[in-house]
């Protein structure tokens, strides 16, 4: 056990909780737990029919970690101070996830777990392009 970095164990434990949340949302509420879909439906009006259910989910996603942050030390997000990068990144993630109808939770977790072709293809593509951005902007240009 001593050879396994503690981060990997936290990753696995946190991952199991993410999967448990997705399983509960499917089996109890009958909904797909996709963060971009839940949030996007609130923003663009397409999710008006179950707005309160979406809002309750988002309240939990924001609120539960907020409670932890009050009583314990929340981990740093180590987010960049480059505001232009944050704005471009945010807008592009917003457009891309709505266009593809899913992000890491929807296509990644919920899609791959049922061997969805779209989920697997989406995940491979966003990993590929994410990797290319790191290659070009970190190792090529040294920007991020």
């Amino acid at each position, binding site marked *: 056990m001593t050879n396994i970095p503690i981060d990997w164990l936290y*990753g*696995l434990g*946190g*991952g*199991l*909780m*993410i*999967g448990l*949340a*997705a*399983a*509960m*949302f499917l*089996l109890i509420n*009958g909904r797909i737990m996709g*963060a971009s879909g839940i*949030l996007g439906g609130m923003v*663009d009006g*397409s999710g008006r029919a179950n707005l*309160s*259910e*979406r809002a309750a*989910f988002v*309240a*939990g*996603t924001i*609120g*539960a*970690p*907020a409670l932890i942050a009050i009583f314990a030390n*929340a981990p*740093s*997000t180590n*987010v*960049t101070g480059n505001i232009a990068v*944050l704005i*471009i990144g*945010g*807008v592009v993630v*917003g*457009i*891309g*996830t*709505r*266009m*593809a109808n899913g*992000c*890491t*939770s929807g296509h*990644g977790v919920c899609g791959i*777990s049922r061997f*969805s*072709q779209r989920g697997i293809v*989406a995940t491979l593509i*966003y990993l590929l392009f*994410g990797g290319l951005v*790191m290659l070009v*902007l*970190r190792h090529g240009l040294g920007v*991020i």
Partner: protein
Amino acid sequence: MRLLFSLLSGSVFGIGLLISGMTDTTKVQGWLDVFGAWDPTLAFVLGGAIIPMAIAWQLTKSRTTAVLGTPIPTPVDPVLDRRLIVGSALFGIGWALSGFCPGPALASLSYGGLGGLIFMAALLVGMYIEPRLSFGTPTPDAA
């Protein structure tokens, strides 16, 4: 009841994201940095998340409705269209640039400082304008 369990699912999701390291943008960028100092943590996160959900999908095979009466979403015929490809590519680019995807950006909103708030505002703008950019109609993943 529906709202209570929605809140509960969201809470477990948020805490899982916090514990897993997904809200640490440097870990996300480290995971995507395959050609540099690669950090495999996110493989454990994704692997851990897929296990309970794969079991959940198996459990849905013997029933048509969820516990609270909603029909279980059924997969539709897979369509690998331009929206999926281009959208996922854009998402990957923005994910690497910022280190944030939508779930962790929500989970860290309370403790992520000004940078997290700016990302969230930009994310919501992107989500709002996408249907208005005439990229075509959304392709469903389940009905």
